[in-house]
């Protein structure tokens, strides 16, 4: 897949990769991504392709640190081992952060290690890396984060930080491929078209009822909705985030194969299905919407009437597999 195109294109990119201790195959990644139709890095962007686990084995970090980073990797890619304790749906961290959390356009996780502590609008205070990880446990995994400072939390944080190896703290340049960049929102979204597309192109893996597929205790295909999915407070319930995730990553192995309209339609369909309650639920869906609408739910369909049948979404007290609503790690910080 290597072509002469790379050389031409990357002549320009030497400028910005120089800033970072680049993985030696950074060029291979960028070349592959651009051939698939992803944008090439812009001149002012920070490009970082994290080291792999093979790179870890070959590196000269202390063997004990290697062991802990490996454990972080293992937790990240098979988070189901914490099922019933910290995780109450069928997801792994890598269910949304593809390529072990390393891939551009699939919300690579390393930026958190170099931009935090930092301010997050979602909870309106300064968060550190552990709290950011705790956020994905609380909402995306419909769970209860491992204790701050616990072995599991430390191992996960170490994995994130290892992935950021060589990147300066608080980088000033925007990061290439961060998050799930959304395609432009089309004028109209269609539930029906989204449903049809889902059945044709997604159900083979995710199931026609959105339940995904588990084999034994391992998740093969995560659940895009229902009790086994992320809850109403997760980033992925925002339409633009879901559309961005889908456009850039799905169907698995075929990124950017859907048109912008298709990605938004299927995101709209998935976002119109039920899932466990938002842990910030006040006991009333309208009140919760009022409270968290401005910072979050204005981008989701929470509390709105569904197109297909007029059902109000999120109007229930179902918390999925867990028997609590909010883990005690969700609290405001005031630094006072």
């Amino acid at each position, binding site marked *: *897949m290597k072509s002469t195109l790379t050389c031409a294109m990357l002549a320009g990119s030497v400028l910005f990769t120089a800033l970072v201790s680049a993985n030696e*195959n950074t060029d*291979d*990644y960028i070349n*592959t*991504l651009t051939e*698939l139709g992803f944008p090439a890095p812009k001149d002012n962007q920070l490009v970082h*392709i994290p080291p*792999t*686990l*093979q790179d870890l084995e070959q590196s000269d970090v202390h063997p004990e640190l290697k062991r802990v980073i490996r454990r972080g990797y293992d937790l990240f890619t098979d988070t189901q081992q914490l099922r019933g304790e910290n995780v109450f749906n069928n997801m792994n961290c890598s269910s949304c952060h593809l*390529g*072990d959390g*390393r*891939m551009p356009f699939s919300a690579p996780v390393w930026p958190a290690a170099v931009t935090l502590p930092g301010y997050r609008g979602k909870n309106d205070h300064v968060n550190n890396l552990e709290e950011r990880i705790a956020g994905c446990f609380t909402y995306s995994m419909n769970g209860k984060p491992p204790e701050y400072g616990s072995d599991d939390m430390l191992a996960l944080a170490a994995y994130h930080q290892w992935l950021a190896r060589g990147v300066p703290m608080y980088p000033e340049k925007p990061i290439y491929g961060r998050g799930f960049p959304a395609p432009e929102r089309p004028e109209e979204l269609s539930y029906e078209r989204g449903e049809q597309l889902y059945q*044709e*192109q997604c159900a*083979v*893996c995710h199931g026609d009822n959105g339940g995904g*597929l588990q*084999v*034994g205790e*391992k998740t*093969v*295909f995560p659940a895009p909705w229902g009790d086994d999915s992320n809850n109403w407070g997760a980033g992925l319930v925002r339409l633009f985030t879901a559309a961005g995730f889908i456009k850039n990553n799905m*169907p*698995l*192995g*075929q*990124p950017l194969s859907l048109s912008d309209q298709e990605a938004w339609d299927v995101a709209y369909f998935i976002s119109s299905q039920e899932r466990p309650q938002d842990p910030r639920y006040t006991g009333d869906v309208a009140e919760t919407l009022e409270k968290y609408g401005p910072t979050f739910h204005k981008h989701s369909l929470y509390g709105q009437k569904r197109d297909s049948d007029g059902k109000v979404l999120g109007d229930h007290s179902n918390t999925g597999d867990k028997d609590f609503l909010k883990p005690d790690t969700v609290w405001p910080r005031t630094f006072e």
Partner: protein
Amino acid sequence: MNYLPTAILFLTTLTLPGWLQAATEGDASRGAEAAAVCASCHQADGSGKHNEQGESWPQLAGLDADYIAKQLRDYKSGQRQNATMKPFANMLSEQQVADVAQYYSEMAPHPGQGGDSASEEVLQRGRILAQRGDWSEYIVSCKSCHGPDNQGAGSVFPGIAGQHAGYIESQLKAWQAGDRTNDPQDLMGTIARRLSDDDIRAVAAWLATQPPQAN
């Protein structure tokens, strides 16, 4: 050859995605009779054979029944092309397809052949492709579709661990050449086309050394 039924079958496969096709209930003991003619290649115990020269015969023992049935229907309809297999698939009625599928799916699988001669380095590369993928080429790990330890996931994604190296190689190359196109949504073809010849040898060898699903 009778073209009409084939054409009709082809149409029905077009309207329904393969994985949604209603399954006819299979009977393993009837399947054993119908499978007598298959043993010369797939062996009486369903283990198949890795042939260094020429076509390898896939192991059928332990594969998912619906997956086997789909492949047989695909040979019959021409959705999957292979000169050796076609006449044998054509011999089977729809009921017999379900019966032999059930029969083979209940058999205990045997170790895969053809991977042992590969070097440690080659096996290592194969392991990484199968378990983690190589995202520098956007090669998604095999196990993300073929399930934990590549032992299969549901009836759409067959177990490939413990399959013979020669057969795995031939299928990946068939997808690359456009000779096998019966996978849903080109899911397998997309990945196969990203593999180099070395990758194919490596992943086929490693998978052949892995334990097939114990059922």
